[in-house]
C-alpha cells in the first residue's frame, strides 16, 4: 500500500461519520481511528499488524499521521486542483464534447476544468489559479476521493 492510498484513507475517515477504518492489503494492515477531543477530530494512524513480508522489500510502518502535502506538491512549482467531493471525474460536459482542458491548456482563475458527479449532483470544478495545466492526474470516468488531486497547474 503506497503513501497516496493511505492519505486517501485518512481523508475518507476525516470527511465521513465513521470512527474507525481497517484495511488490509499486501500483508500490511492499516487501522485508522478517529478520536474526538472537544470539537477537534484527532486522526491517529497506526499500523496494528505487520504480516510476514513475502517480498524482499520491507513494508512501511507508520507511527504517526501522514502529513497531507501542502500545495505546492512534490514539484514545488505546481499547484494542485483538488476534488471537493467523492464522485466520478468527467473531463467534458458529455461524451461528444471536447474536454474542458488538456495538458498544456492555459486556464484562468474561475475557468471550469472538469465535472465531478456523485449521485446525480454535478459539480463544475473551477481552477483556483491562472496558469497552465501540466498534468491531468485522473482519467475520464475515474472515481475520485475528497481532496484528491485532479490537475497540476503551473501558475503564471
Amino acid at each position, binding site marked *: 500500500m503506497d503513501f497516496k492510498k493511505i492519505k486517501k484513507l485518512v481523508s475518507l475517515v476525516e470527511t465521513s461519520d465513521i470512527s474507525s477504518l481497517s484495511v488490509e492489503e499486501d500483508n500490511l494492515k492499516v487501522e485508522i481511528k478517529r478520536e474526538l477531543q472537544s470539537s477537534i477530530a484527532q486522526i491517529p494512524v497506526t499500523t496494528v499488524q505487520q504480516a510476514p513480508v513475502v517480498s524482499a522489500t520491507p513494508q512501511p510502518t507508520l507511527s504517526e499521521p501522514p502529513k497531507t502535502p501542502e500545495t505546492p506538491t512534490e514539484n514545488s512549482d505546481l499547484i494542485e486542483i483538488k476534488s471537493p467531493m467523492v464522485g466520478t471525474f468527467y473531463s467534458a460536459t458529455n461524451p461528444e464534447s471536447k474536454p474542458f482542458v488538456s495538458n498544456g491548456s492555459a486556464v484562468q482563475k474561475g475557468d471550469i476544468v472538469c465535472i465531478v458527479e456523485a449521485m*446525480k449532483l454535478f459539480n463544475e470544478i473551477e481552477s483556483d489559479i491562472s496558469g497552465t495545466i501540466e498534468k491531468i492526474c485522473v482519467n475520464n470516468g475515474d472515481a475520485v476521493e475528497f481532496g484528491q488531486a485532479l490537475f497540476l497547474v503551473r501558475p503564471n
Partner: protein
Amino acid sequence: MTSVIEKTDAALSAVIQSHSFISTLTYFESISSTNAYALDACQVGKIKPGALVIADHQQAGKGRFQNSWESNPGEDILMSLVLEPHCSPDHWARISFPLGIAVRNALKKILNQHVSIELKWPNDILVGGHKCVGMLHAADVSTGCVILGIGINVNQESQLIDRTSLKMVSGKALNRWRVLNEILTAIGTQLDSILSSTIDADAWNAHAAYLGKPVQVLDQALITGEFRGIDPHGAALIQTSDGIKRTLVGANLRLIDGSIENRQ
C-alpha cells in the same frame, strides 16, 4: 438560438408568496433548461439562494448526460430551486435523500393512498412502479449554492412504457400549481434536513424501490446483487456473492428481472 420568454401568472405568484423560503420567482414560457439558467444566473449574482426558476417547457431538458427529459409545454412541473446548504460541499450529494422524502410526502397527499410511491436510488421517484419524478442537481462551490432540478410528470400522457404521470395514475388532470404548492410545503417542512443534507436512512429505506430485488449498478465495475437499501452516507448497498458492496458514485440502479422498470 435559444428563445427565452419570461411570463407572469397570478395563481403561481400567489402559491410562491405563501412559502417564506422562496425569495424570488423566475417563470419562463420556454427556456433551454431551468438548471442551466439557474446555475448561470447564480454564478453572475443575478439570482440568490431561495430563488425558484420554473418553465412551461424546456428545449434541452436533461436527464443524466444524454438522457432527455421531454415534456409538452404547460403539462408538467419543471423547476430549479437554488439553496445554500449549511454543510460542506463534500456532503452536498446527500441532499437528494431528504429532498426525495419531501417530494414523496407531497405526492402522498395528492394521490390515492393505495398507489405505491417509491424512492429509486439515488434520486428518482417511481409511482405505481414507473418513473414520475426525476431530479438532477448542479453544484457551484464558488457561490456555495446547489441548484435542485426537479421534473414532475403532472399531466403528460407519456407513451414510454417506463414513464407515468400523476394524471395517468389518478385518471384526472391536476392543477400544476396545486401540486407545486404541496411540493414546496413538503420541502419547507424538511428544509433543515435538506440544507444540512441529513440522511434518515431508515425513513428512506422504508420506501425504497427494488428493496430485496436483484439489481445492477455501474460503479467502476458492474455490481450485481440484491438491493439492500442505503447506508447513513447515502451509499447503495448491494448484497453480492462476495459480500455487501457499497457504491456512492454509481448511477442508474436497474432491476435485472426483465420487468419494465429495467428499461429506465
